């Protein structure tokens, strides 16, 4: 069994970069330690290059447990671009904090390594390994501000709940193996067929346990309660990573287990996912309405966003490849379109927070006068999260509704109803932030906002991305629409 090194080149590059970063950090002293950031960025760019070179190819390796296809490539590009953006917003934050720069970048790269593996994994065990590779560095990163009680609380909450979810998932996996005699996703799908319409209850329980494990990762209600505290307590770039990339990885894994392995029982899990979607978006939005802290607002809004991303799962119909494919494509589009403004919003919060420590919504008052560029950027990002023009967010909502209209089931219409109500609720708090930024006078003697060059460039690039993709959504949808989940798998 020869290993196809070309297929895993992006992962190898990221692994090598992570090790180099750790070593370089040992060697360098003082301010020179900042160099690890550009090194990590170069590694990410090289990995991105290898990923793009795999565009359109279909390869498998490690005995068909690891696949490369259009679908995985799109996901990996999303991850690597997010990595670059997060590196951009991290630089100043960690350089000025002067804590654990090497460790942070090492952990960050390792987490992204796990993410890259996630969409490619076609075996429950490999999925589990990928999930742990994403999670374990996350626990440590959440606690990096170790002198802060909040940061420690963030880490311990995240750790405990993460461990419980992994335990549940492993339990589910072991039972699933007992029933089907395989851990291969396609093997499970074939094996499940033997029970026909009357599967044993325990089988369904193990199926749901595996899904629950991912439910924690994507912070779906009722497995969400770690998310707001963890986001609020973590270093902000870590919060951005958890809210965007780590969540996207959770969705990648969830897609694999549901749409590939458990596809024959879609009528069991799809309604469950629909209920999760409704709970997640509604609760996330309602609680976000009450928030006064900007990071917590973004945290709850990202819970609500996870609810929107869960909608396509609720649309799945066993055996209807067209509807399932449309659902996966819509989710993929949503993740891509959501990553850009959400990292951007965290970037602006970091800019305002930097040096001043301000992070309540009131501290954004008069940002339109104090720092118009950041205010314009934040408005664009928030409008995009809500789904209003001129931003790519409009198309994200469009994609979800399109998948819903295509499925056309009763569940689909109910989900669409909740989506409509929730988009209105969401705008209520997004617009309040916009209002505060533009129409409220700044407090007297408030410190000026100095975002720094890196952060400004990253923010500008993300604003440009948000607007350009509004005019030409085809740049994403041309890629997502030809992705075929099952190709090569």
């Amino acid at each position, binding site marked *: 069994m020869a290993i196809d090194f070309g297929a895993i080149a992006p992962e190898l590059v990221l692994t090598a970069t992570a090790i180099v970063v750790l070593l370089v950090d040992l060697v360098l002293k003082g301010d020179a330690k900042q160099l690890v950031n550009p090194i990590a960025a170069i590694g990410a760019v090289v990995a991105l290059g290898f990923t793009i070179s795999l565009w359109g190819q279909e390869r498998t390796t490690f005995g068909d447990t690891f696949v490369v296809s259009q679908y995985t490539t799109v996901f990996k590009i999303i991850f690597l671009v997010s990595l670059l953006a997060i590196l951009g917003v991290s630089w100043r934050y960690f350089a000025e904090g002067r804590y654990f720069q090497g460790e942070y970048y090492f952990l960050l790269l390792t987490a992204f390594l796990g993410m890259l593996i996630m969409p490619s994994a076609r075996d429950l065990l490999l999925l589990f390994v990928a999930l742990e590779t994403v999670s374990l560095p996350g626990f440590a990163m959440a606690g990096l501000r170790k002198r802060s009680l909040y940061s420690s609380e963030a880490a311990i909450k995240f750790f405990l709940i993460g461990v419980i979810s992994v335990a549940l998932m492993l339990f589910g996996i072991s039972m699933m193996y007992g029933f089907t005699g395989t851990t291969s996703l396609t093997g499970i799908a074939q094996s499940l067929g033997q029970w026909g319409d009357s599967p044993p209850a325990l089988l369904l329980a193990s199926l749901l346990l595996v899904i629950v494990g991912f439910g924690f990762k994507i912070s779906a209600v009722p497995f969400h309660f770690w998310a707001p505290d963890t986001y609020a307590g973590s270093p902000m770039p870590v919060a951005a990573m958890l809210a965007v990339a780590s969540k996207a990885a959770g969705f990648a894994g969830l897609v694999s287990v549901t749409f590939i392995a458990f596809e024959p029982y879609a009528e069991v899990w799809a309604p469950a996912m629909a209920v999760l979607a409704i709970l997640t978006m509604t609760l996330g939005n309602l609680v976000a309405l009450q928030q006064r802290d900007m990071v917590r607002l973004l945290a709850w809004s990202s819970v609500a966003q996870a609810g929107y991303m869960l909608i396509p799962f609720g649309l799945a119909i066993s055996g209807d490849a067209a509807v399932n494919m449309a659902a996966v494509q819509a989710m993929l589009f949503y993740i891509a379109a959501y990553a850009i403004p959400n990292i951007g919003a965290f970037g602006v919060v970091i800019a305002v927070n930097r040096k001043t420590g301000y992070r309540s919504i009131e501290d954004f008052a008069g940002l339109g006068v104090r720092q118009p560029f950041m205010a314009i950027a934040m408005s664009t990002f928030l409008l995009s999260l809500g789904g209003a023009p001129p931003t790519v967010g409009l198309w994200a909502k469009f994609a979800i509704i399109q998948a819903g209209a295509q499925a056309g089931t009763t569940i689909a219409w109910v989900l669409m109803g909740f989506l409509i109500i929730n988009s209105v609720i969401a705008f209520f708090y997004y617009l309040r932030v916009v209002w505060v930024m533009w129409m409220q006078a700044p407090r007297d003697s408030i410190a000026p906002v100095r975002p720094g060059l890196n952060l400004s460039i990253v923010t500008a690039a993300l604003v440009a991305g948000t607007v350009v993709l509004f005019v030409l959504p*085809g740049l994403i949808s041309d890629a997502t629409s030809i992705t075929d989940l099952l190709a090569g798998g």
Partner: protein
Amino acid sequence: MLNDQGWLLSLALFMPLIGAAVVTVVPKDREGLTKQIGVFFTGVTFLLGVVVAFGFDYSRSGELQYETTVNWIDAIGARYHLGIDGISLPLFVLTGLLTFLCAIYTTKIIPSPGKPRAFLALMMLLQTGMAGTFVSFDLVLFFVFWEVVLVPMYFMIGMWGGPRREYASVKFFLYTLFGSVFMLVAFLSVYFAAGDAGIANPWDIVELSAAAGLGTSTFQTFAFLGIFLGFAIKVPMWPFHTWLPDAHTEAPTIGSVLLAGILLKMGTYGFIRIALPILPDGAMRFAPLIGVLGVIGIIYGSLACLAQTDVKRLIAFSSVGHMGFVMLGISAMNEVGIQAALYGNIAHGVVTGALFFLAGSLHERYHTREIAEIGGGMLTKMPRYGALLVYVSMASLGLPGLAGFWGEFTALWAARSPAEALVANGYSGLYLGLVIFGAIGTVLTAAYFLWLIQRVGLGTPSARWRDEPLADVMTVEWVSWTPLMVIILVMGVFPAVIFGVQQDAVTNLMVFITG
């Protein structure tokens, strides 16, 4: 021929966007230059609109002209499909004209807190959104332009509005958004139904209309319901109108002029261009409801007007009534009715746009809009201004010979003999009732306008204002108002200028609606 130069229409559409970009890079302290640039770009846009109207072939006004078709989003088959026909042309030109006049008005009168750069940039962004909805012939493109309007209008009300601007702007935004998401769901189900029906470009409004009815009757009913919510909120129809008085009361003058003059027209235009021809069965089923809601709007609007103490809020409620007539015209589902609706649409845009200009200038002078505080005697204190107010009020209450008359009169006339399908279903009695109540509405409309004029125009100025130096109509106001005054007269005396342009296009449309 000029009218197959599609780029000309695109240029006219996106010129304001270029203007918005240019305005934002002007240095902050060059306010005069900023305003000149605003006038220049809106002026060029208007000129381009005139060129489009000039090159338009009126003998073929039922067909799409200046057509452009470019593939846009391949994954869903959406295309950049622009065009203009007899229905779109007047609205497109009106958009250019009103925005140009607003830019002129802004050179001298800009609401607090100033900031002409942001104001003009938003206004021009708004213009592109509004004009785009009238010339898009692809549902996705239409939806995008439709949504683009939201953000600039939100900021316009929110930043330059009155004391309750936060409430009004958020209400406007959320209300409209709510409707438009429903509309999007309906559009997408139409898209899939069109795909099943084998239509080559399932987003194309022209092809969808020509399909003469998609899906089952139940499908059409539900799809129409979704689209109905989106458009009815924008029109606004009673009982979805509650955002309108708040938005108008708080909006700055320019915001109100554009809101009443063009933005509301997007709703009625959408009904006529999209909802009726694409979903004729659903439309036939909803027509009586539309008629009833329209007439309730007429009566409710005029009664509410009688109770208002704020001039601007009164005009806002009068919009609810006037749009009720437009919807009554649509509900008749016949050629005369559609003509009446489109005519009333444009007349309302011109007349109410002018009224909001007048209300804004009233506030500039008296610093209040309370009728009781203003007192009487405007005609002696500011004779020219008072005369204009009387003139436009007369047009708005539907005096024959001025613009407002034809829309209302023909709408009632059309509702007297609604489409055959409606008569066959036994609705003729209902429509007779609608005509009667609509006619009562015209009397009430006359009542509140005449009462308004009596209270603020006639009599002698109160002690408070007798010795105040109140300027009569200023030059900038003459410049920005005269075109509207002329159009009001021309539309009243020669209604054929609009009816004639629309005729062929409406006839074509009726083929789709009634088969």
